[in-house]
């Protein structure tokens, strides 16, 4: 039995379509990533999975329970960390965790082994108000609160947004460990680089899934030549490259611009073309496709 089975769900708010015919399955014990920009429908999907809103169409079963009919049963088994979850700012770290433990009918002591690895970072600050914690600490505490009742499945909606890179890395290591403990995890992120940490990822755009695969297969499926280019005039470079014949798609990628090419593309011609346009300290190399490149390519289709 898959942990989550989503069949053809759609959800609209008035005229805005949030989800449009989404289907996927998540296996038991899998770390499943949902990758996409803001407004792609990630939060709506999580809320449907968490029994918080109803889909207009389609069915969802989680751990064998229907999210509409069996929501009461299901709520005992879900751990959910919403995107804008901010805890109770005026309660201390310890009080927050105590409260959430009590809400789910357990105590910190009873399930300390589940959160111990994460909570140990917070112990020195346990008397501090949650509102006074750093972003990384807040996320750790929120994760503890979502885990304290030993859920079978954990939903994390953009848990690393607004968290520094070091804490993000730590956070993903924690998720890996939870996965080894047998918890199924569905996590969303707008950061493409985090996708590699997942077993499988779904790329979502405008309420539709544009690809579900392992990160490796998604990268491998990248079928066209990819180049990275850099010059002293980065801003102008983007439009100049786009105007060159044989260039299909050019977009900013960190410190360089990435572009894909089609038939009739010639590297040397581009080089001299760009030099002719007055670009200095030019650099042009073939590039390895990342998840972000795949996303850009799939999103174009």
């Amino acid at each position, binding site marked *: 039995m898959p942990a989550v089975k989503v069949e053809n769900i759609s959800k609209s708010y008035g005229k805005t379509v949030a989800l449009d015919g989404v289907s996927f399955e998540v296996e038991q014990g899998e770390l499943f990533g949902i990758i996409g920009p803001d407004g792609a429908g990630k939060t709506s999907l999580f*809320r449907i999975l*968490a*029994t*918080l*809103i*109803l889909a207009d169409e389609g069915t969802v079963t989680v751990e064998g329970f229907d999210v509409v009919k069996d*929501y*009461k049963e299901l*709520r*005992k088994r*879900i751990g*959910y*960390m*919403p*995107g*804008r*979850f*901010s*805890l*109770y*700012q*005026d*309660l201390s770290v310890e*009080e927050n965790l*105590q*409260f*959430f433990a*009590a*809400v*789910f*009918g357990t105590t910190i002591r009873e399930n300390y082994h589940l959160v111990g690895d994460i909570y140990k970072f917070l112990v020195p600050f346990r008397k501090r108000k949650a509102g006074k914690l750093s972003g990384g600490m807040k996320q750790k505490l929120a994760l503890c*609160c*979502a885990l304290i009742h030993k859920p079978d499945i954990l939903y994390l909606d953009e848990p690393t947004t607004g968290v520094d890179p070091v804490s993000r890395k730590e956070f993903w290591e924690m998720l890996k460990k939870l996965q080894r403990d047998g918890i199924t995890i569905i996590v969303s992120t707008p950061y493409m680089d985090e996708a590699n940490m997942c077993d499988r990822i779904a790329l979502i755009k405008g309420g539709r899934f544009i690809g579900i695969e392992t990160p490796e297969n998604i990268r491998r499926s990248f079928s066209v030549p990819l180049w990275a280019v850099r010059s002293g005039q980065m801003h102008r470079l983007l439009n100049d490259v786009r105007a060159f014949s044989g260039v299909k798609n050019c977009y900013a990628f960190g410190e360089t611009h990435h572009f894909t090419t089609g038939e009739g593309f010639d590297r040397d011609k581009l080089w001299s073309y760009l030099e002719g346009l007055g670009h200095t300290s030019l650099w042009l190399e073939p590039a390895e496709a990342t998840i972000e490149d795949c996303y850009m390519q799939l999103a174009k289709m």
Partner: protein
Amino acid sequence: MREFGAFVKKEFFHILRDKRTMLIVLVMPVVLIILFGFALSTEVRNVNIGILAPSPDPMVRQIADKLDASEYFTVTQWLNTPDDIHAAMKADEVQMVVAFGQNFSGGLLSPDGSQLQMVVDASDANMAQSYTSYASGIIAAYGSEMTAMGQDTGILSQVQFLYNPQMKSAYNFVPGIMGLIMMLICAMMTSISIVREKEMGTMEVLLVSPVRPIYIVVSKMVPYFVLSCINLATILLLSVFVLGVPVAGSLAALWLVSLIYIIANLSLGLLISTMAQQQVIALMFSGLLLMMPTMLLSGMVFPIESMPWPLRGISCILPARWYVAAVRKLMIQGLPMIYAWKEIVILASMAVVLIGTSLKKLNNRLE
């Protein structure tokens, strides 16, 4: 049950740690009572009056002395002609003039009687009304004194103020303030505190928990229920010991009515919270749609009887109107509870309807 206890504890933490809210909740009743009791008093005290007497005879002097001797009036001017009245009024030297007819004492003994006129500055209509009734009272008392002394003075009307012989305005506004404060704390604070959880995103997590939504909202009500009871006690103590307004009737009956009223308002707060998604909206709802009508239409400031029928109709759906009426009967008039049965039944039915509607609207999900 342990879950419920944890919820209530958390709510108390929220309230106790928010110093500003605590201050408002606990100090507001005291400030309002003291403000209304002393600063915004509508009582008559040391009002300057003039006496117009074309022929000052002993009886006119005696009445003038009576008026002057009372704590309500001070005779500051003796006028000679009716024209002086306007001059004195315009100069704001007097608020009222008592004008005696020609040959006042002599006229009293004649079959036609004699005439006395009160000219009053009615730019503040309510105060003008009070001045004339106070003055009439004093003159009437003088008249009956004369009669008792064997002097026939013809018929003089007599006014008696029941339940509030000194015409203290506190008797009027204490029930009103009770109604207002409990509405603010129960309906406004409860709705805001529930909507805050929606805004902060914590409501999502609570809804995903196995705790039933009804426990979540009931746990929100408990602290505000306790606060309202504290406030009720504060107001009663202040009104008895500071304003000198006694609880004339049964204290138990008063508390019973108040508890029904508190419950009705808590459910009103819950109802608002199910409709509002943001704290600002909840605040507007309770501020504009509840507080304003309650202040203006519940009878705490303006008498309901003198309102046009559409406003009277609106006042009927305000719980505060019935509560204020019941408190007047039970606390000021000291009537047994049976006399307030109509108000109690209406309040109780309002509470039941509000609880029913809000629980029905209470959602197991986010939308």
